[in-house]
């Protein structure tokens, strides 16, 4: 029975010594976890994934579609709660405004399209703009996760100078 009293006394003395006011709580407010939005594209690691299209010599510029080297998993997860944030709409955007480049030569990003594994993030073609909307979904309270696997294709519709062309597409998720 004495030990709690002794502990309270010691705490009070320390608080007084430090000049900390001992407030008496009259109201307790508990809110949910802060709303959060998470986006993952490809494998998590130290380096950015690269999708490579290698055009065989006999198919250059023939219009035969060339599949990318790997499928890419895209995942968007939203956490909302009644206490903060609340339900919202989430957008997935892509910035493909930088064309594929090799020296002074370029290939427009409209040559790159993708098919969808599950149809959640639909098939499409990059339009070469900075804010292409790939899909949207409604995120109610709680955690909502949307994911899909994309397989990319190079249209191979024109003959381009020999070389290795590279670029980076940047994805972002936006909670409205």
């Amino acid at each position, binding site marked *: 029975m004495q030990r709690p009293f002794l502990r309270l006394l010691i705490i009070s003395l320390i608080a007084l010594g430090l000049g900390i006011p001992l407030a008496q709580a009259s109201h307790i407010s508990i809110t949910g976890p802060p709303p959060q939005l998470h986006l*993952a594209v490809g494998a998590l690691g130290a380096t950015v994934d*690269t999708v490579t299209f290698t055009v065989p010599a006999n198919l*250059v510029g023939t219009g035969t579609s060339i599949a990318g080297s790997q499928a890419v998993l895209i995942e968007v997860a939203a956490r909302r709660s009644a206490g903060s944030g609340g339900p919202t709409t989430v957008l997935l955007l892509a910035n493909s405004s930088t064309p594929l480049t090799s020296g002074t030569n370029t290939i427009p990003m409209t040559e790159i399209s993708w098919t969808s594994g599950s149809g959640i993030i639909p098939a499409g073609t990059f339009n070469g703009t900075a804010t292409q909307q790939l899909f949207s979904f409604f995120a109610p309270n709680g955690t909502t996760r949307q994911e899909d696997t994309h397989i990319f294709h190079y249209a191979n519709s024109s003959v381009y100078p*020999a070389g290795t062309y590279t670029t980076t597409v940047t994805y*972002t998720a936006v909670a409205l």
Partner: protein
Amino acid sequence: MFHGSNFGEFMVMSVKKSFFLIVTAGLVGLLSAVSQPALAGSGTCTGANCTTPGVDLNFQVVIPNLVRLRIGNAVGANTLTFTPAAGIVGDSSSVSGTGGDFLPGTSQVTVKVLANGGATGVQVDTDVAAFSSGLECQAASGSCVNGTHFIAWDQISVAGNGCSVVPPTLDNAGSGFATYSAVGGIVNEDCAWDYTYDNDTVPVDGTYTGTVTYTATVSP
């Protein structure tokens, strides 16, 4: 063997330990989520109306350096056949042929000249070395004698259909050629050549055959 009280104590300690472990793991996880450097391929934002950091995905297209020449079928050689009617032999009325792949029933063949290695151009040459005296009479095909009777190559004319460059002419010396200049480091001719028999001479009757071989050479 546990005694009653000891077992109870052990259970309490286990529960406390589990709780402690859960709390500790949760804190470690939270802290690591906050302090860990962002991994490539993911981004997180917090807030009611937030935008995640950009997540990059690299793309790479590898275009090989190539020179491609196609005259006629993609695989195998076309045989163009000209059959002048008896009434017009040697009267210089042009005779269309058959056997072309570009347009069925005609002697038009597909032509593709492609180079993407940054050269200044491509030259397409003709080679009739195996038939340098002209199209050769086939044995037992008529009155003509194999090895004796020929039709000169210049009796075959070639006209372009949708081409940017005039096709190489044919002659017994194999001197015809066509030069394609590169634009932006690329030569990409895609059209058709239409062959006709000029019918300017009266050969000994029979069937005459010959082969033209085309080659493409990149100009440095």
